[in-house]
């Protein structure tokens, strides 16, 4: 019985211990369950994201860049088909061998190979390496022929930027190139960037990046643990960038560039009512297509070291003294402020008796002098003496108000071009601030003939001329078509304002901001006087650009020559009186010309600058004359096209 009792006791112990164990088991299972709950229910989202991150890999597909067209929808920048060679890195077993084979096939040099290895280091193992983005057809077909021997090689038909009018537009349209780290900081590029995508480097390509770049596509693939693509899950198609429509007429642009061939300078043409820039040529120029796939050293050196500086967009980044082209504005300012009766006579006595102020002599350009001059004749024959005196009476501050109002001293195209220069319209305050010196009256005097501190860009001169020619209305110059502007309305509004002419209550002589398409003048007769004087300058005998005139009223234009000194003229120079050809190129004067056409019912303003071209009448005016004819010939077409467009909108 004792044994039995012991056994009962032992059985009890075992059972009791079993229950303790069972309790522990239940506790531990509860622990597992709560852990499962945590993972699968509380943190589910977190792990779902991680799982998708594991299995889904995205490849971005590059968008096509938006095209750029001219006023007539002619394509100025397109996307051309190119042959490329890509390497899918995760399909390659031995990178060195593959590169070696490719090197032998398409002939890469040591430098290019080094670059490829560097590029590869920056890529992830499942990325694509672009070996060449512009193969010749021959190279491309060779690659295709030996494709079975090249691991991971993928011949790709892609697109790249192409500029059909190459040299003729580079200063306006700009060019594209590989994105620099600085480019990648720009939000519009950062958001849409795909490795290998070209971005705008200059001009419209650069400033309109947001419009042009488009949106990349996304290809989502399910991949396995080793990164191999299993299936495509999703493909969000890339979106091509928007079209950018310029106001440029490529025919006129081309012609302007042709006129500037072999010269350094600029030609700008503008619609005087709408403010559309019709042409903006700069010479010398270069081929933007060379930049698309990275320019080679030799070409780059050639462009960079050219003494005529092709890289500078002279129309907006070239600064010149306006010279005599400034005179109509000086005259207008003097008339508006009522400084001077246009019938006032001043005698120009030639170099022997120059204008004198506080002992300093100021010469007229004409050695033998103009004789007795009234204002109209002084403009027409560009007499410096008359303007010295007029400027003295007017004063630099009043002149600067009018000069600024008519478009000098500020960017014409806003922030479209990062290299556009503001130029300089000096006044006494400016000199005090910038140079910490008082203004001298002598500086006012030379300012009156567009010399001295004053600096302008060719496009500013064109705008100035346009705003005088349109009867003194402020316009909004632009080079990209603005759909918000109804050109017909503007034209009608200005013309209506010109014909119904109520007297103004506002004092237009104060330094005020004028709204777009509002009049800027005080008295209409003053504007008309200046326009008439410019007519005389071109179309009457003794006018400085008489030789370039047209008698046909269809083409008849009015203008003003200018010759801007690049250095001080000494007495010795005056004595020698050399021809332009005899002077060293760098020391020759810049030739300038501004004009508007047709004289009756004008529509276009034009400015021409030939660097070191000599006199305006000889070097600049003839070019303007030729271009004006072409512009007017194309005017009807432009009008029809633009009105058609407006009615469509």
């Amino acid at each position, binding site marked *: 019985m004792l044994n039995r009792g012991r056994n009962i*006791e032992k059985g009890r112990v075992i059972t009791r*211990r*079993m229950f303790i164990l069972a309790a522990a088991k239940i506790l531990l299972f509860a622990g*597992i369950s709560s*852990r*499962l709950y945590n993972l*699968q229910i509380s943190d589910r989202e977190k792990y779902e994201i*991680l799982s*998708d991150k594991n299995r889904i890999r995205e490849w971005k597909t590059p968008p096509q860049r938006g095209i750029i067209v001219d006023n007539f929808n002619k394509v100025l920048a397109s996307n051309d088909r190119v042959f490329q060679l890509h390497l899918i890195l995760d399909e390659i077993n031995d990178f060195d061998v593959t590169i070696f084979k490719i090197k032998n096939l398409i002939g890469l040099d040591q430098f290019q190979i080094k670059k490829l290895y560097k590029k590869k280091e920056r890529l992830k193992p499942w990325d694509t390496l672009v070996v060449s983005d512009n193969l010749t057809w021959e190279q491309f077909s060779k690659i295709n022929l030996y494709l079975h021997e090249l691991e991971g090689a993928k011949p790709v038909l892609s697109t790249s930027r192409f500029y059909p009018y190459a040299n003729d537009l580079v200063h306006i349209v700009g060019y594209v190139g590989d994105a620099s780290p600085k480019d990648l900081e720009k939000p519009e590029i950062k958001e849409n960037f795909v490795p290998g995508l070209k971005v705008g480097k200059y001009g419209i390509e650069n400033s309109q990046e947001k419009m042009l770049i488009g949106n990349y596509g996304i290809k989502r693939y399910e991949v396995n*643990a080793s990164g191999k693509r299993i299936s495509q899950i999703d493909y969000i198609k890339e979106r091509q960038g928007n079209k950018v429509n310029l106001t440029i007429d490529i025919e006129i642009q081309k012609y302007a560039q042709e006129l500037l061939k072999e010269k350094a300078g600029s030609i700008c043409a503008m619609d005087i009512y709408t403010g559309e820039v019709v042409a903006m040529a700069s010479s010398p120029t270069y081929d933007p297509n060379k930049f698309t796939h990275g320019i080679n050293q030799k070409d780059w050196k050639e462009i960079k070291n050219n003494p005529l500086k092709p890289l500078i967009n002279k129309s907006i980044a070239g600064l010149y003294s306006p010279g005599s082209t400034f005179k109509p504005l000086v005259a207008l300012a003097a008339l508006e402020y009522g400084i001077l009766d246009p019938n006032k006579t001043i005698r120009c006595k030639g170099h022997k008796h120059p204008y004198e102020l506080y002992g300093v002599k100021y010469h007229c350009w004409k050695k033998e002098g103009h004789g007795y001059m009234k204002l109209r004749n002084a403009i027409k024959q560009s007499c410096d003496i008359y303007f010295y005196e007029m400027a003295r009476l007017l004063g630099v501050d009043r002149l600067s108000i009018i000069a600024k109002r008519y478009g000098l001293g500020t960017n014409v195209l806003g922030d479209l071009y990062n290299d556009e220069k503001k130029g300089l319209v000096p006044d006494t305050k400016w000199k005090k601030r910038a140079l910490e010196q008082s203004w001298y009256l002598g500086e006012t005097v030379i300012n009156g003939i567009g010399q001295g501190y004053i600096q302008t860009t060719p496009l500013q001169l064109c705008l100035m001329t346009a705003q005088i020619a349109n009867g003194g209305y402020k316009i909004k110059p632009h080079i990209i078509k603005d759909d918000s502007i109804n050109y017909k309305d503007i034209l009608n509004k200005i013309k209506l304002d010109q014909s119904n002419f109520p007297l103004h209550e506002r004092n237009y002589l104060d330094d005020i901001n004028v709204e777009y398409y509002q009049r800027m003048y005080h008295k209409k007769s003053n504007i008309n006087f200046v326009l008439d004087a410019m007519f005389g300058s071109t179309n009457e005998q003794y006018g400085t650009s008489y030789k370039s005139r047209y008698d046909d009223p269809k083409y008849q234009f009015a203008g003003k020559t200018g010759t801007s000194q690049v250095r001080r003229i000494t007495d010795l120079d005056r004595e020698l009186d050399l021809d332009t050809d005899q002077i060293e190129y760098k020391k020759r004067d810049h030739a300038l010309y501004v004009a508007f056409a047709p004289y009756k019912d004008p529509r276009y303003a034009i400015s021409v600058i030939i660097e070191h071209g000599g006199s305006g009448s000889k070097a600049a005016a003839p070019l303007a004359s030729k271009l004006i004819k072409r512009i007017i010939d194309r005017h009807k077409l432009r009008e029809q096209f633009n009105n058609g467009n407006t009615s469509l909108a």
Partner: protein
Amino acid sequence: MLRERIQASNYSFLDKLRSIDYLLILLIIAIGSISVFAIYSTEGGKFSFYTKNHIIRLSVFFSLFLLLSFVRVSTWYKNAYLFYFVGLLLLITVLFFGISASGAKRWINLYFLNLQPSELMKIAVIICFARYYHRIQSSDIQSYKFLIQPIILLIIPCYLVIQQPDLGTSILIAGSGIAIIWLAGLNIKYFVYSGLLLLVSLPFAISILKPYQKSRILTFFNPDRDPLGAGYQIIQSKIAIGSGGFFGKGYLKGTQSYLEFLPEKHTDFIFTLFSEEFGFLGSIILLLLYILLIYRIINVGLVSRSFFAKLYCFGFATAIFLYVFVNIAMVLGMLPIVGAPLPIMSYGGSSLLSIMLGLSIVMSCKIYNQEQISAY
């Protein structure tokens, strides 16, 4: 009493059939079926090598289980030590003639099966200890004389298994052995003391671990230490389970395993795959099946008359619990990765064989539950 005893040992076949635990068999079939589907899924929904092998093994070992269930429990009792020594012999054989795979020497080539003796040892220890404590009077249990023997019996196989090296199995063997010592009624203070001793010696224990074992333990505490190396398995396993959510991604749709992010998915990480595809709901159901299985085994122990049967069933139930717990806790990142299969679910012949063998002894305890075993 004597008559009773004799009667009890004379079962008719009908009696035997009647006393079979059908629920237990049903549970085994249920878990077995789930395992077939899970293994099928690991192969990406193709009926191929692993699935085929698993089905064959399941059916062979299940038949073996049914067959062995009718072996008298006293026969098991009689041969318990033999079983243990055969197991030990096999472990020693492995030491010299074992075949290696991925740096471990754990298997003996038996031509039809690569036998892993350590798996058999798991059962052998339980049956050996059950026999040992069956005959010891409860008054003697606390004495050192009777304590030292099982400890030696336990240390030898554990040491041999660690040498393979296979820390996981070794811990499981030790765990089941200790469980039976506990069940037999050894004073709690011994467990408390040895627990404390273990804690104190832990730093020394870690210092003698193999580098990969150390890194596993470090990784356990911080899986992000080496996300593509040692931490990879556990991170991917957690992602798979977590992303399964409540209902799971659906059968054959577990992306983590299908896309091969999950390592060892047919063996140690089979629960991860199951949990990814069937979610929280499926996991809890599977867990419940295991709990039921353990409950039924304990139940057999409760209705058995002999201490041997009781100790064996309770011990085996605890062992099953340990296997399930260690495996699941491991894939959930609650324990370091030690390499422990999930009973029945995991692909692996030896593990399946030992579980089925163990279950057949349970069943034999059930069928012959009235059998009294005299102390030999």
